[in-house]
């Protein structure tokens, strides 16, 4: 893979990584730096697209009133009908079997395959500024409560940029995804038997945290340590 191929690929999907891409990023300082900068601008793109709907509607309502041609009665009737329809859609969807937790589990498990270079047993902690960048705006982590954090990166998971950390557990590396905006009702099990990995996605306040480690890793102790160490910053 050359620089042009690599850059085209990450410009199409900054979260993309495969073995060839990881090798190129390791060997080419310029591309590694380019990828880091691209991921910074990606965070901006995401923020720019997610404007605050309520305040925009409020402003638009105030500004647009004179230029709306629809009679007020029609507008109200339409809004009411759409509101009723929205409630109807919601009610029906609520009683359909939910696919979202399954999707979250699948996306999280799939993400483990994205960054093979992160999966190493080491006593070397990740650079503090790299960790800071990965966490920025999402969470604060009390490092005293965790073992060595050996890897940190901001990754696109289920449509959102989230901190992806690797900590060193009792039985080897453990992947943590800090899913600050993925609210779940109950703990979801993760299982990759072909890789000898297991884990959970556990709820934490308004978000959740995915923990994936070796089959021999004690999940209970890890869950407690992680829950005590992470605090959402948003």
């Amino acid at each position, binding site marked *: 893979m050359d620089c042009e191929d690599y850059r*085209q*690929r990450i*410009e*199409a*999907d*900054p979260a993309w990584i495969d073995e060839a891409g990881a090798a190129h990023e390791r060997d080419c300082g*310029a591309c590694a*730096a*380019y990828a880091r*900068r*691209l991921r*910074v*601008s*990606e965070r*901006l*793109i*995401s*923020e*720019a*697209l*997610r*404007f*605050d*709907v309520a*305040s*925009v*509607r409020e*402003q*638009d309502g105030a*500004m*647009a009133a004179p*230029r*709306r041609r629809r009679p007020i009665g029609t507008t109200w009737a*339409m*809004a009411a*009908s*759409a509101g*009723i*329809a*929205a*409630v*109807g*859609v*919601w009610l*029906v*969807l609520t009683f*359909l*079997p*939910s*696919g*979202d937790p*399954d*999707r979250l589990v699948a996306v999280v498990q799939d993400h483990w395959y994205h960054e093979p270079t992160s999966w190493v047993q080491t006593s070397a902690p990740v650079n503090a500024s790299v960790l800071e960048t990965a966490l920025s705006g999402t969470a604060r982590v009390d490092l005293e409560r965790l073992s060595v954090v050996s890897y940190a990166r901001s990754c*696109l998971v*289920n*449509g*959102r940029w989230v901190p992806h950390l690797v900590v060193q557990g009792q039985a080897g590396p453990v992947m943590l995804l800090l899913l600050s905006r993925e609210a779940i009702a109950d703990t979801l099990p993760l299982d990759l038997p072909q890789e000898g990995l297991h884990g959970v996605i556990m709820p934490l306040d308004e978000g959740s945290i995915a923990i994936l480690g070796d089959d021999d890793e004690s999940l209970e102790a890890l869950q407690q340590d992680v829950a005590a160490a992470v605090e959402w910053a948003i």
Partner: protein
Amino acid sequence: MAPWRDDLYRYAFWLCRDPSLADDVVQEAMLRAFKSLSSLKDQAVVKTWLLTIVRREHARVYERKRLDTRDIDDLSAADAALIASSEDTDIEDMRKAIFELDEEYREPLVLQVLMGLSTAEIAEALELKQGAVLTRLHRARKKLVERVSPALGIVKE
């Protein structure tokens, strides 16, 4: 319900770049979704199902009202307010840059970043080949980086 309704509104806005029109599109789309709920059998595909309805409704609105595509120089007060609704000037610059992107680049980017669709799902939604989606996403980001990078201190190598 609120999270996906907000995202649908955002998607509609980034399609038409007009807050009022986006409201109309989402309202009409909700009515159509309600009428065709019986065709939805699996909630796992609800997001792409609703996106398709919004996308079609957006096309219908344009056809019906014979609206022209928008130019950045034709910003309404509401558009300008939306673009400037962030206190962060970097986000404001990026929003402006996205606003200016051609629809063929803007839509796949919105579907990927905002709606979390994979390139395969985007290809299906836009009836394109996956390679074409990758090219459009690559070009979209290239244009955004070229436009916004100087303000962020990013130098394109």
